[in-house]
C-alpha cells in the first residue's frame, strides 16, 4: 500500500472518530437518563402529585407566557419589519439582549424591578399586590426570556411578506388593520408559528430567572425545570422522569418546527 493511500485511510479514520465522538457526546447523556429508569418507575413518578403539578404548571405558565408574548411582541415585530425609524437598531439590540443575557442577570433585574422595594413592585405593594414568588412571577420571567425569540422570528416573517400584497389589499378597499389580518398574517403564518413554538419551548425550559423571582414552591411556582433541580437530591427517579418528559416535548417541538419550515420552503 502506498503511503498516500495509508494517509487517506488514516484521515478518514480520524474524521469518522470525531463524528462518532460528537454524536455520542450529545446523545449519551440523554440516553443514560432513559436507561436509569424502568417504565414502571416512570409511570409511578409521573403520577406523584408534585411531579404532576410541575408538569401542569409548566404547561399553563408557558402557554400564558406565549399568549402575552404574541400580544406584546407582534406589533413591535411588524413595526421593525416595515418601518425605518430613528433608533430602530438600538431598539432591536435592546430587545435582543435577553437572548444572550445570563438568566440569573435577567432574574435579578426582574427582582429589583418587581420586588417589594422595586420601582414597580413598591408601587404595587402599596396597593396590596405582590408579584414576587407568585405564579405570575413565573410567567413574567418566561415572557422576559422567551419574548425576544418570538419577536426576532416574527420580524423576519413579516419582512419576508412582499409589500405589494398589502398594497393590493389596500387598493381593493381594505384598511390597514384588515389588510394586516387578512393578508399579512396569513402570508407570514409559518414564520409566526415557528416563532410561537420557539417562544413556548424557551418558556417551558426557563430556570434561572424563574428561580430568582418566583422561587421554587411546589404547586405554585415549581415548574418542571425547577422540580428537576429541587427533587434531584431527594427523589432522583422523579427528576429523571420529569427530564424525560421535557426531552420528549423538546423532540416534538423540533419536529414541529422542521415540518413547518419544510412546508414553507
Amino acid at each position, binding site marked *: 500500500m502506498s503511503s498516500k493511500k495509508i494517509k487517506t485511510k488514516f484521515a478518514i479514520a480520524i474524521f469518522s472518530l470525531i463524528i462518532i465522538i460528537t454524536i455520542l457526546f450529545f446523545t449519551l447523556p440523554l440516553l443514560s437518563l432513559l436507561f436509569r429508569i424502568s417504565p414502571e418507575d416512570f409511570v409511578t413518578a409521573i403520577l406523584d402529585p408534585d411531579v404532576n403539578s410541575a408538569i401542569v404548571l409548566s404547561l399553563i405558565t408557558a402557554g400564558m407566557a406565549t399568549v402575552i408574548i404574541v400580544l406584546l411582541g407582534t406589533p413591535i415585530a411588524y413595526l421593525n419589519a416595515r418601518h425605518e425609524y430613528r433608533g430602530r437598531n438600538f431598539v432591536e439590540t435592546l430587545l435582543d439582549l435577553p437572548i444572550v443575557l445570563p438568566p440569573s442577570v435577567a432574574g435579578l433585574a426582574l427582582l429589583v424591578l418587581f420586588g417589594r422595594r422595586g420601582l414597580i413592585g413598591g408601587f404595587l405593594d402599596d396597593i396590596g399586590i405582590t408579584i414576587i414568588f407568585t405564579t405570575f412571577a413565573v410567567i413574567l420571567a418566561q415572557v422576559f426570556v422567551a419574548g425576544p425569540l418570538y419577536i426576532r422570528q416574527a420580524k423576519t416573517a413579516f419582512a419576508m411578506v412582499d409589500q*405589494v400584497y398589502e*398594497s393590493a389589499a*389596500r*387598493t*381593493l*378597499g381594505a384598511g390597514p388593520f384588515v389588510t394586516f389580518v*387578512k393578508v399579512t398574517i396569513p402570508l407570514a403564518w409559518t414564520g409566526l408559528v415557528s416563532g410561537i413554538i420557539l417562544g413556548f419551548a424557551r418558556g417551558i425550559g426557563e430556570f434561572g430567572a424563574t428561580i430568582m423571582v418566583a422561587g421554587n414552591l411546589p404547586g405554585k411556582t415549581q415548574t418542571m425545570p425547577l422540580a428537576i433541580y429541587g427533587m434531584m437530591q431527594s427523589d432522583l427517579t422523579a427528576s429523571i422522569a420529569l427530564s424525560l418528559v421535557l426531552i420528549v416535548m423538546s423532540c416534538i417541538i423540533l419536529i414541529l418546527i422542521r415540518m413547518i419550515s419544510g412546508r414553507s420552503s
Partner: protein
Amino acid sequence: MLYARLVKKLRDFLLDVELTVNPGEVLVLLGENGSGKSTVLNLLSGLLGPDEGKIILNNSELFSSEKGIFFPPEERNIGYVFQNYALFPHMTVFENISFGLKMRKIPKNQFNGEVDRFLENLGIEHVKNERVTNLSGGQRQRVALARALIVKPHMLLLDEPLTALDQSARDKIRLELREHLVNSKQPSILVTHSLKDAKIIGDKVMMLEKGKVVWSGKANDLKSLSNIPDESPVHVVSEEYISFSGIAID
C-alpha cells in the same frame, strides 16, 4: 373624468406630471425603467402621497395639497392591476376576485353570480377554485383584471400588465385588454415600456423621462412616427427617445 397634477420629490429627480383622462379613455404612460411611470400610479392610487398637486376624480377631490385632503387607497374606489399581478397566494381564484366585494360588505350570495359572470367573460371559469399559484401567466393576468374590474372602480390603473406574459399571449391579449378597458367606461391609465402596447391599447400617450413628460399625443401619431418630418419636435423627441432608451419596439 380624471384630472391630476402630481409633484413629488424622488431620490434622483422631481416628478411633475399633469394629466387628464376621460371616461372610457386609455392613457398610456410610456417610459423606461425608473422614469417615474409606476410612481404616477402609486400617487393616483394613494399608496404614495404627492408633495404637491391635486387629484380630481368625477368631480370629487381625492387629494389636494392646498386643502390638505388625502383619501387613503381603500377609500378611492380604484382598480389596480399590479406588475406581476400581486394575486394573494394564500387564496383561490374565487377568493382573490371576491376580495374587493367582501371589503365592500356585499353579502356572499349576492356576489357569487357576479364572480361567475366575470370568470366566464374572461374564459377562466374552470380555474375558479384553484390556488392562484397553480395558474399560467395568462390566467393570472385575467384574474388580476377581474379582481380590479369587479368592484366597478372609478379609475383603472395598470402597471405593465403584459410584461409577465410570453410573446404570443401578449399579442393575443392586447386588443382584448383594450376592449375591457373601454367597456369599463372609466378613465384608465396603463404603464408600459412597450411601444406596441401603447399603439394598440392606448388612446393617448405620454412619454416620461426623469419624471417629466417629454412627449404627449394620440396613440395614432405613434403609428406614423417615421413619416413625421425631421424638424417636428414629435419626431426628434420620440425617435431619439426610442433609439436611446429601453422602450421595447416589439
